[in-house]
C-alpha cells in the first residue's frame, strides 16, 4: 500500500440493529466526514453488520491516562456489590 499522506484517522461506531447502541468497530483513514462514512460502510458493514454508522475524528477522543490506572479503576475492584449479578437474567433477555 502506498503512503496515505494527509488522511486523518476516524473512529467508527456501528449500530448492529435497531434498539442497540452504537459500538466501536475500529477506525478508518479519511480526508473528510463523508469519506469517513463511506470508508466505514465499505470496511465494516459489507457483511450486513450494521444499520447505522457514526464516525468521530480520533483527535476528538479524550482518553484516560494509563498512568492513572490505579486511581481510576483499581477502587472498583473490591466493590462486587455494585454488580447486578445476584439475580438470574431470564433467557428471553438478549443483549443485557
Amino acid at each position, binding site marked *: *500500500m502506498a503512503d496515505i499522506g494527509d488522511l486523518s484517522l476516524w473512529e467508527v461506531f456501528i449500530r448492529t440493529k435497531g434498539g442497540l447502541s452504537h459500538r466501536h468497530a475500529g477506525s478508518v483513514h479519511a480526508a473528510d466526514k463523508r469519506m469517513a462514512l463511506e*470508508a466505514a460502510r*465499505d470496511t465494516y458493514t459489507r457483511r450486513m453488520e450494521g444499520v447505522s454508522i457514526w464516525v468521530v475524528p480520533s483527535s476528538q477522543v479524550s482518553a484516560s491516562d494509563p498512568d492513572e490506572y490505579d486511581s481510576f479503576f483499581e477502587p472498583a475492584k473490591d466493590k462486587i456489590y455494585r454488580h447486578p449479578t445476584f439475580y438470574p437474567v431470564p433467557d428471553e433477555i438478549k443483549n443485557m
Partner: protein
Amino acid sequence: MSPQLKNQLYELSVRLGDDALILGQRLCEWCGHAPSTEIDLTLSNLGLDLIGQARHFLTYAGELEGKGRDEDGLAFERDALDFKNCLLVEQPNGDFAQTIARHFLFSTWQLLFLEQLAQTNDETLRAIARKSIKEISYHASISAQWVIRLGDGTPESHDRMMNGLDWMWRFVDELFLVQEGIEDVCENIGLDLSSIENEWRNKVAATLKEATLDLPADRKGIFGGRVGHHSEHLGPLLSEMQSLPRTYNDANW
C-alpha cells in the same frame, strides 16, 4: 414474443450482463493494490456488486437463449468477439484517478439507464434493475465524490483526474447506443432512453464544475463493443478471468 424479439432480448441481457461482468472484473484487479485498505475494500465492493448484477443478467440471457448455457457458460466459455460490453468498461485501470473517471462516467449512465429499465414491462429485467439501482446509486455517488475530491485537491490530483477523464472520454458516446440493432425489443418492452443522454451530460457537467475540472474537449467517439469489436484490452482480461474454468471445466468451490 416472436423468436426475433426473443433473440433481441437475449442480446440486450448479454450487453448489460457483459458491462457489469467486465467492469466488475476490472475493479477486482485493484484487490491488494489500492492506495489504502479502505479504498481497496471500496473498489472490491463495487466490483462484487457488478458481478452480482452480471449473474442476474446472464442467467436471464441463458434462459432466453434456450441452449442450456447458464451464467457461467456465458461468462467463461465465450471468446472476445462474442462479448457485447461497451468499450468504456474494458479500458485499463490506469492510476486511481483513471479508474474513478471510468467508474464515474459509467455508473452515472448506468443509474439513469436502470431507472428506465425499472419501468419496462419485462418482469425479470425490471426486477434486476430495481435491485441494482440501490447499488449503483452508491456507485454514482461515491465516484462523483472522488472526482470532486481529486479534481479540487492538489495540482497533481487535479491533473491525474483530468488525464483519466481525457482517456475515457472517447468511449462515452457508445453508452447512448446501447439499443442499436435491437430497437424493436426496446420498444416492445417499453424502454425509453430518449432523455438519458441529456440528463447524463448535465450531471457530468455539474460534477466536473464542482471539481474545478474542464469538460474534456469533444472528440470522435469510438464504437464497436456492442457488436463484439473490442479494444486490445479485453483479451488479456478474459484470459485471466476464464483461465481457471477453461483449464478445469469441472472446477467447483
